[in-house]
């Protein structure tokens, strides 16, 4: 099922100038995300500077940890409006784990509002389960997006989270995962693709997601 080096095969030289920015707001696994992007063929910019964000061709919002302190950190760095602006510009955006949850309007994790880009809220996984939901779980894809190109409709990805998103518009959920309840593990809307799992920790198919994201970003950048 796997072509060994596919996600890591060399990219065309034109991709070298692609500005893929990983948002640095002191929340978690930036290095893992950057390494996965390097494996996918680009040298990402890791930055928390709103000016750089505005100039990026594509943005990844990673994140582990607590939602309320993450929003606080984004606020402190003046990144809230620039992030909303970037997403509204139509350029490719990838949210990972907390980076998915922050897109919503509110979270049960704290009182601070989230980015409010996607209508809906973030809820805590129900009591009685082992939390965090940690490990490899099945993602059932029911929709398409360029960033999921060639990813099988059923594939395993690595999860670590205690909260999940509940978007108001059901059709935005294009991947679901079961952990006692079925929750949205992949959300897509136009230029946004966001995953509850960590593609940078999900082996082959995870790297494929990053590679697809980079290729998609290059196509969009070339067309604009």
């Amino acid at each position, binding site marked *: 099922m796997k072509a060994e080096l596919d996600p890591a095969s060399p990219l065309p030289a034109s991709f070298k100038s692609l500005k893929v920015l990983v948002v640095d707001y002191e929340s*978690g*696994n930036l*290095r*893992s995300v950057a*390494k*996965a992007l*390097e*494996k996918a063929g680009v040298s990402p910019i890791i930055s928390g500077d709103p000016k750089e964000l505005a100039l990026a061709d594509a943005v990844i919002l990673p994140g*582990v*940890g*607590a939602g309320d302190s993450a929003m606080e950190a984004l606020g402190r760095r003046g990144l809230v409006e620039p992030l909303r602006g970037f997403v509204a510009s139509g350029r490719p955006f990838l949210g990972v784990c907390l980076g998915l949850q922050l897109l919503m309007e509110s979270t049960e994790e704290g009182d601070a509002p989230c980015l409010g880009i996607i209508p809906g809220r973030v809820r805590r996984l129900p009591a009685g*389960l*082992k*939390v*965090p*939901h*940690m*490990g*490899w*779980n*099945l993602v059932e894809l029911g929709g398409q997006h360029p960033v999921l190109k060639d990813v099988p409709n059923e594939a*395993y990805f*690595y*999860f*670590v*989270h*205690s909260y999940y998103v509940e978007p108001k518009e059901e059709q935005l959920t294009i991947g679901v995962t*079961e*952990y006692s309840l079925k929750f949205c593990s992949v959300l897509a809307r136009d230029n946004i693709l966001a995953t509850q799992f960590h593609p*940078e*920790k*999900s*082996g082959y198919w*995870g*790297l494929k997601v990053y590679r697809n994201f980079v290729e998609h970003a290059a196509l969009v950048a070339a067309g604009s």
Partner: protein
Amino acid sequence: MLTKRIIPCLDVKGGRVVKGVRFLDHRDAGDPVALAAFYDREGADELVFYDITASVEERGIMLDVASRTAEQVFIPLTVGGGLRTVDDMQRMLKAGADKVSINTAAVENPRLIEEGAHAFGSQCIVLGLDAMRVPESSPRRWRVRVRTGHGGGQETTLDAVEWAAKAVDLGAGEIVVNSMDSDGTQGGYDLELNRAISEAVSVPVVASGGAGKLEHLYDVIHQGKADAVLAASIFHFGTYSIRQAKEYLAQRGVPVRPL
């Protein structure tokens, strides 16, 4: 459905794997990065490096090992051994570890769990718990031991189940339960110990110590209620491959990530 994880554990000393691994060619047999890449290809769900380096001077080497591993291996990596402060944890996480495991340092200073969880999130903080049975206890009890990297370690007055529960209250996101009675025997995990802890805490429990046969993995998942199994010798010595372990568990109805 969430799958049960199979996690090979490598003991590393001064940047080299201790005991070595019998089925790789000799060039790579002691290189933790090469082994990590090998186990990743084999289908391991996560990896654990345990730094048993005694000297402080050599601790920095582990940062380099974690960093080089993170460049090549895209599954979760936990590093334990010798991490005594939040700064130690931060350096290891920045180097490329996804989780840090603390043991003796947490017993001596439980606030370390709290501070680590606050700084990096609970999902990064693994409590390593070494436990030994209290002879003739009924109901069965286990005591926590520390400094087990050097011989059998030292007994503490802590009850293993109570310590696990307390660590979770403080913010530990996962517990690796290592039975000092079973470790190295290849006679099976301590099922009672794992079950007692798994039922007492709300976070995932990783069973460690005693794997000798594939049946042991099944038993500690099924009867011991473990969420993941950690093993060293059976994989390193080539007794079983990760694939064989997964196929065996799948046949017995345990959800595993297929290869």
